[in-house]
């Protein structure tokens, strides 16, 4: 059974623009409606076997969830931050320890919120009238995730695939479609297949560092001061044609391609591991199959971000051009020189209002473009490459009870996690 994807980009663009406009106009309160509407649209685009998914989340419950999270988190963040700052300055005479432990303290809540948000979204998703669901277990997820992170950091990332696998297994094994549970099969070692490009990039980076630091030192041992080193570089730059001379500082430019390779490696791992994991997910009588292409996903990210950014820059230039035409060149030059304040004649609250509106509009437009050129093609690719190999088990599935959920995804919203869609 194939998955279709039916929505058009322009329809999404207008929906995102329209709801984003209301979000700015209502000082952000409409964002719960915006999120709901966009999810409804994306979900209804994804059609396994021609029947759309349905998102039944309610903006009001999201608003309620946000209020609940604010009540609980303000006390945590306000009082705890204050106490940490006090201890940090009293005992260590620096703010760093305070900030650091404040950051550490938020991490478990972060994992907790992540799981709760997933539970909420799955609990509000239906296909063919039947609900999905995720069992309770957010704190179990949080401490497991913490432990896996500690292990991963202690092994310098060598056991990263183990973390990916077990955290995904924790979530998948608790996922339901109606009465049917989903299961994550396979072993964690199978994810090493996805690490290829990243491992290669790390290897090259290590070689490069070895070469630059020990084999042919970039900074000669004899050089005493910073000036001498820079002077040495300048002498080298005169010999522009000697790029192929392997002892020159031009070797430094090799860092750039290696860095790009590492970024690609990270994206490749993320999506190739998703594909491998999906191919080992099954339920009684149903088997998932994914042919997600990590290279394609990288292209979507690169092209989508570039296009969105280009359009945004052109838009801002157009606004600046209109301002230039309206106010005349002198005003603009003067404001650049700081000799006049173009908003100086306005009352302070009005000029702040105008600037805030401009600032928010740029963010709004960036969000809309990101939806149209990154999220949309990504969702489409993920949907189209997914299929169900065997659907005999579907007839045995029956409905599950509604997951009542007072705080919805409030914690994720308050901690800025739910930014994906």
């Amino acid at each position, binding site marked *: 059974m194939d998955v279709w994807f039916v929505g058009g980009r322009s*329809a999404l663009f207008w929906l995102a623009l329209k709801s984003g406009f209301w979000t700015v106009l209502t000082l952000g309160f409409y964002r719960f409606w915006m999120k709901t509407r966009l999810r409804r649209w994306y979900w209804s685009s994804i059609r396994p076997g021609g029947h*759309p998914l349905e998102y039944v989340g309610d903006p009001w419950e999201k608003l309620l969830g946000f*209020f609940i999270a604010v*009540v609980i*988190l303000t006390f945590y963040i306000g009082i705890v931050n204050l106490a940490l700052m006090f201890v940090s*300055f009293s005992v260590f005479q620096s703010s760093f320890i305070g900030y650091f432990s404040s950051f550490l303290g938020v991490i478990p809540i972060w994992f907790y919120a992540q799981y709760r948000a997933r539970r909420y979204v799955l609990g509000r998703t239906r296909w063919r*009238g039947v609900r999905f669901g995720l069992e309770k277990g957010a704190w179990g997820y949080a401490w497991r995730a913490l432990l896996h992170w500690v292990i991963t950091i202690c092994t310098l990332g060598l056991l990263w695939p183990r973390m990916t696998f077990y955290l995904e297994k924790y979530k998948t094994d608790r996922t339901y479609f109606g009465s049917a549970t989903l299961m994550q099969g396979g072993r964690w070692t199978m994810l090493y297949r996805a690490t290829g490009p990243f491992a290669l990039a790390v290897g090259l980076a290590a070689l490069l560092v070895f070469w630059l630091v020990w084999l042919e030192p970039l900074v000669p041992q004899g050089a005493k001061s910073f000036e001498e080193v820079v002077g040495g570089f300048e002498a080298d730059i005169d010999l522009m044609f000697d790029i192929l001379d392997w002892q020159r500082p031009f070797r430094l430019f090799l860092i750039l391609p290696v860095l790009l390779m590492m970024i690609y490696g990270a994206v490749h791992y993320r999506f190739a591991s998703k594909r491998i994991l999906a191919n080992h997910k099954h339920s009684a009588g149903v088997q998932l199959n994914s042919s997600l292409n990590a290279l394609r996903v990288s292209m979507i990210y690169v092209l989508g971000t570039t296009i969105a950014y280009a359009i945004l820059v052109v838009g801002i230039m157009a606004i600046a051009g209109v301002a230039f035409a309206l106010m005349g060149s002198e005003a603009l030059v003067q404001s650049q020189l700081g000799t006049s304040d173009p908003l100086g004649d306005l009352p302070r609250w009005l000029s702040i209002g105008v600037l805030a509106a401009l600032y928010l509009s740029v963010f709004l437009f960036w969000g809309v473009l990101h939806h149209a050129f990154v999220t949309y093609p990504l969702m489409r690719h993920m949907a189209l490459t997914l299929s169900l190999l065997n659907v005999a088990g579907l007839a045995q599935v029956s409905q599950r009870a509604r997951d009542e959920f007072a705080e919805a995804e409030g914690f994720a919203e308050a*901690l800025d996690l739910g930014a994906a869609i």
Partner: protein
Amino acid sequence: MSMPPDLESHVAGPRPMRQLFSGIDSTYFDGDTPVPQTVTLMVDHAAQVLEIGLPGSAVAGVCWSLDEIRQLEDTAGQEGVILRWMGDPLARLHLADPYILQHMPHLKRGAPPKGRGRLAAWAFAAVAGVAFQIGVLVPLLADRLAEFIPPAGERALGEATFGQIRQALAGTGLPPLPICENQDGLAVLEEMLVGLEAERGTDAAIKVFVLDHEMINAFALPGGYVVFFRGMIDAAQSPNEIAAVLAHEVGHVENRDPTRHALRSAGSIGILGLLLGDFAGGAVVLFLTEQLISANYAQSAESGADEFAFAALEAADVTPAALGDIFERLRDKVGDTDGVMSHFVSHPTLTSRINRARSAARADAAYGDIVSDESWSALKRVCD
């Protein structure tokens, strides 16, 4: 679209009681099993219901009341619509032929939000919680903790805050606002501190800086930092006025007002960041920096610092009226240059503070100057 295979509809006369529609490609889901069911569709005008026949199922069919049928919103794609019925929130009818929709009057009517009372209660709790935190709990805790923070910790807090303020005033990406370093000028400030009998040479000693900025302002930071802007020194007409401001700020330091203030903002900054989200967070930091500079201390803290200044000036044989003079000068000067923020000026009871400073001076006494005229001109050149 195909015409309904109902021959009666072509006959002129009264509307048919029951009208058949095409169910081809339409599907019904009963809300229990994920198995699509083929349908026959008929509208019964007399009973105002949609009869959904389920030929392949053990159940004969279901009846949906026409005015309780709703269409799913924000659905992608051009073809087909999905209908739901308020009587059975789980069942869905995926409709291929939109011809039938004209018989359903309230397809797009929204549902009233559920649990308004609960929502209002939590909204109130959220606002009250934040207000209670920022207005009561954080200040209370900060005031208590400020008593216990050791001098070295206080100094570190002040140093960090001073760095942040210099950076914020210079703008992102630029080097921090320069400090004026003319030794003769700084020596005059030192001379004033000695004259005012401020604590010297210890851990808690007052450290005075001048920032090269035209703002007419001065502020105190935790750990004994007192910071003047160049604009303040330019605006003053006599060294006694600067000494008065210095004494006022030393009063804040002695009363630990800046430490309380810094601890308060450490508590509040996280809360505001939480509420406003990531992109507004930068604006919050800027706002709080301005708050630190314009330092709207409580009225009692201001009069406490004023009282301290009067006593210190009196002891140094300088008229306390100097504080009133510089306040008045600032009020006149800043009154016509809009937008300059100064905590002296923005304070609503400035006139009464001017009067209080004037009456603190003994009418019959002959006061002296805090430093000589040469020293005063050296101080004026502190940023050259």
